[in-house]
C-alpha cells in the first residue's frame, strides 16, 4: 500500500465518520462541528488530487465563512436538542428505500464503468504538476472562458445579499 492510498483512506474515513456523526448527533451545534470535520477532510482530499486552489477556497469559504454563519445562527436562535414528531415514522421506510435505491444505482454505475476509462486511469499524474501554473490556468479559465458566468455570479451574490437583508429585517409594527 502506497503512501497516497493510506492518506486517502484516512481522509475518507474522517469524512464518512463526520457525515455519519452529522446524522446521529442530536444537537445542531454538534452536527455543525461534524460538518466542519467533513469539509477539512475534503480539503485534504483536494490537496491529494492536486487541486491546491480549490482546497484553499474550501477551507476559507466553507470551513471559514459558511460554517461560522451556521454556528452563529444556531447560537443566535438558541437551537436546542432535536425533538421527534409523528412525521418521522412515515418518512422512515420510504426514505430508507430511497437512499438504498440511490446508493445501489450509483454503485452499479461505478462497478459497470470499472473496466472502462475510470478504472484504468490514475489520478495525481497531471501533465503540469506545478501548483502555480494550475492556479494560473484556473484564473485564465474564469476570466476568459467563463467570464459571463463569473459576472452573473456577482449579480447572484448581490441578489442574495438583498434577499437576506429583506428576509431577516424586523417588521415595522
Amino acid at each position: 500500500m502506497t503512501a497516497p492510498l493510506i492518506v486517502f483512506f484516512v481522509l475518507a474515513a474522517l469524512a464518512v465518520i463526520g457525515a455519519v456523526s452529522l446524522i446521529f448527533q442530536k444537537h445542531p451545534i454538534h452536527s455543525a462541528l461534524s460538518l466542519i470535520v467533513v469539509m477539512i477532510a475534503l480539503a485534504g482530499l483536494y490537496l491529494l488530487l492536486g487541486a491546491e486552489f480549490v482546497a484553499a477556497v474550501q477551507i476559507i469559504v466553507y470551513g471559514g465563512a459558511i460554517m461560522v454563519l451556521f454556528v452563529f445562527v444556531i447560537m443566535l436562535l438558541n437551537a436546542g436538542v432535536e425533538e421527534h414528531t409523528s412525521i418521522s415514522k412515515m418518512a422512515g421506510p420510504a426514505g430508507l428505500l430511497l437512499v438504498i435505491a440511490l446508493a445501489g444505482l450509483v454503485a452499479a454505475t461505478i462497478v459497470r464503468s470499472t473496466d472502462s476509462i475510470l478504472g484504468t486511469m490514475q489520478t495525481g499524474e497531471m501533465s503540469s504538476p506545478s501548483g502555480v501554473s494550475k492556479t494560473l490556468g484556473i484564473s485564465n479559465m474564469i476570466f476568459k472562458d467563463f467570464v459571463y458566468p463569473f459576472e452573473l455570479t456577482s449579480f447572484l451574490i448581490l441578489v442574495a445579499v438583498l434577499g437576506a437583508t429583506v428576509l431577516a429585517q424586523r417588521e415595522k409594527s
Partner: protein
Amino acid sequence: MVPTNYYVILSAILFGLGVFAFIFKRNIITIFMSIELMLNAVNLAFVAFSQVWHRLDGQVFVLFVIVVAAAEAAVGIGIIIMIVRNRQTLNVGRVDILKL
C-alpha cells in the same frame, strides 16, 4: 496512486449520507447543513473527474458551486430566522401552514 473510482465511490457515499440526513433530520438548520454536505460530495466528484481528463473545467465549476452554496446559505439563513420569528420553532414538522 489512488484510483479515481475510490474518489467517486466516496463522493457517492457522502451524497447518500446527505440525502439520508436531509430526509431524517427534523431540525431545519441540520437539514440545511445536509444540503451543504451533498454539494460537497458533488464537488469531490467534479475535482476527481477534472484530474481524470487533465482539464481544469471541473475545478472552475467547483468554485461556482461554492459561490452558489454561499449565496444559498445567506438566503436560507434569512428564511430560517423568519420562520423562527413567526412560528417560534426549528422543527420542520411544526412548519405546516400549507398543510390541508
